[in-house]
């Protein structure tokens, strides 16, 4: 692995409090609306063709009626040591100096190798051209590019909102601070289970929460160093 460059730029990270998550999937809907995510339809979705940059995984413990459901929102973990990055033969996926796992749609030739090497299965391939049923086709977000067939896509941490927030802070001549950037999922979380911010700033909420005793990272034993932290009492 190459040396990490000492970056003055904000380092984006997210904290998700699983003890607060109700599994309502508002984040999923918000993400679809914000990021021009294709609608697969019932049949293709059952065949594994649905695209959800963020999904709420449900795990059941026990047998009915003595049952517990656990919800876990999972999106691209923006790993600092991302397994998807070295395997791309054309650098279509790479690490930005803000710690984001970038995906360049125009560079992607569609080997799908990155998706195969992602332990979190958060990468989505455009197998066919996207179709939006009326009137959804009229509600595309102009700030997000529409992906056509043959390229990989995944959660960007709402890069368009990050750029906007950074520009605003720059215009006001100050450093980035909490509240400047909120991805669609974070903004729409009714239970306020999700927090987003600059983990390089020790005073930020994400920096504080990620040091919590309840904090863990998904499959951190793989050494991927995810930028998403989960909080859970672990019972």
């Amino acid at each position: 692995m190459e040396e990490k460059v000492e970056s003055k730029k904000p380092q984006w990270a997210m904290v998700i409090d699983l003890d607060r998550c109700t599994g309502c999937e508002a984040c999923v809907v918000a993400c679809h609306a914000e990021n021009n995510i294709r609608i697969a339809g019932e049949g293709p979705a059952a065949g594994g063709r649905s695209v959800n940059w963020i999904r709420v995984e449900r795990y059941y413990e026990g047998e009915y009626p003595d049952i517990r459901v656990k919800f876990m929102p999972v999106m691209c973990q923006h790993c600092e040591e991302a397994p998807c990055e070295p395997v791309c033969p054309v650098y279509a996926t790479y690490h930005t100096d803000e710690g984001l796992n970038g995906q360049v749609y125009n560079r992607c030739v569609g080997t799908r190798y990155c998706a195969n090497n992602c332990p979190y299965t958060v990468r989505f391939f455009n197998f066919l051209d996207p179709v939006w049923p009326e009137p959804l086709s009229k509600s595309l977000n102009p700030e997000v590019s529409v992906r056509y067939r043959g390229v990989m896509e995944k959660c960007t941490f709402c890069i368009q909102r990050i750029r906007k927030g950074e520009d605003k802070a720059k215009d006001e001549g100050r450093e980035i601070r909490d509240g400047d950037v909120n991805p669609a999922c974070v903004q729409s979380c009714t239970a306020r289970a999700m927090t987003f911010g600059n983990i390089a700033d020790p005073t930020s909420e994400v920096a504080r929460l990620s040091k919590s005793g309840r904090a863990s990272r998904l499959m951190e034993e793989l050494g991927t160093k995810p930028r998403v932290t989960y909080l859970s009492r672990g019972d």
Partner: protein
Amino acid sequence: MSKEDVLKSNINSDLLRPVFKTGIGWYITVAISGSLLLAAMGAFGYQLYSGIGVWGLNRPVMWAFDITNFVFWIGISHAGTLISAILRVTGAEWRRPVTRCAEAITVFALMIGAMFPIVHLGRPYLFYWLAPYPNSRGLWPNYRSPLLWDFFAINTYLLGSLIYLYLPLIPDLALVRDKAKGLRHKIYSIASLGWRGTQVQWSRLEKAVGVMAVIIIPVAVSVHTIVSWDFAMTIRPMWHSTIFGPYFVAGAIFSGIAALIMAMAVIRKVFHLEAYLKPIHFNNLGLLLLTMSLLWFYFTFAEYLTSYYGNERVEKAVFQSKISGAYAPLFWAMVVCCFVIPMPILAIKKLRTISGTVAASALIVVGMWLERFLIIVPTLSQPALPFNWGSYRPTWVEITLTAGTFGYFVLLYAVFTKLFPIVAVWEFKEGLTLADHAGSVAEPQRLVAHGD
């Protein structure tokens, strides 16, 4: 005249007959295999027009028939060059009638296998982005990606095997040139590079073939090792394995020999080359196949036992789906095809006949295709997070493409036998001459002695 003298006087006419005379069978073969190829081209056209979604791929199974075919055909390609090179380097005299069939398999199987990394791309028309060429965007490919290693390894191997096929063809091209008339004569004159059979030319050819034979062995080994690294370099269960390099190379040689035996049996039958491709060749290759079958079983056993014993949750899910789950029928069919039936056939001398080795080979080719499928799909369909488990079913497009590869292979091979002598004439004659001069020396004599 003794039997041997009859053979000697007929060598040219026997071995050049397929080049100059074409039977109805050849046209039928070309028509059938050509239609398969056309069907596959139609399927590919449909895929280009509609997108790769016309395949059965999904999330999480992003590779399936495409990469199975890729690994399978690259594996078949190890028949040739590697076998012929090893036999040449070790001076195995019985190789002489076998080498050219083997080398031709390599080139054609490689051409077919190398198509799949392009065919399977989401945007196949951009495949050249993997090549490091100066461009206005200042972009360079990623040398850390095993796919890029593949790109270079396969191109090197293809170029090397083409040279290795072409060099020993030169004297035979000159032979065809001398027998042909008109346009054909002109084409072969150019192709034979002015070969006149002088002492200098012979010694140069021998040197070149000798050097290429030595060079091509490490290239062939590295190619399939790198193909295996496409899987082994990832962190997926039952892919991330140190054994994969040698396991894949052994499997490749295994399926390659099987393909070679089948091709030889067909050539022997349709071109009436019984006096050249003899039971001894099938016996010797059968013994080689037996060795590889045992080696394959050993590798498979070692690989699965460690997964089982490790008992990691993620690995166990994949392991169990193969042993007793959804993929169990295919898995056990693979074990039967690669080991349970072929091993006794090849081990028992009475059964190691031409038809015996061909039957074993046919099973092995099927079994090795299944092996590649079972390495790829079960691992992909069961990612670490069980919420994302999926399954895979091929569509008619993938099945047509797969059938088309076999059609394409047969077509290329059939055309090859029309253009070039499929048994190397000069090599065969050289063997006879060596045997004559050696007199009672045992080694070269064997070829003639075993001619039953």
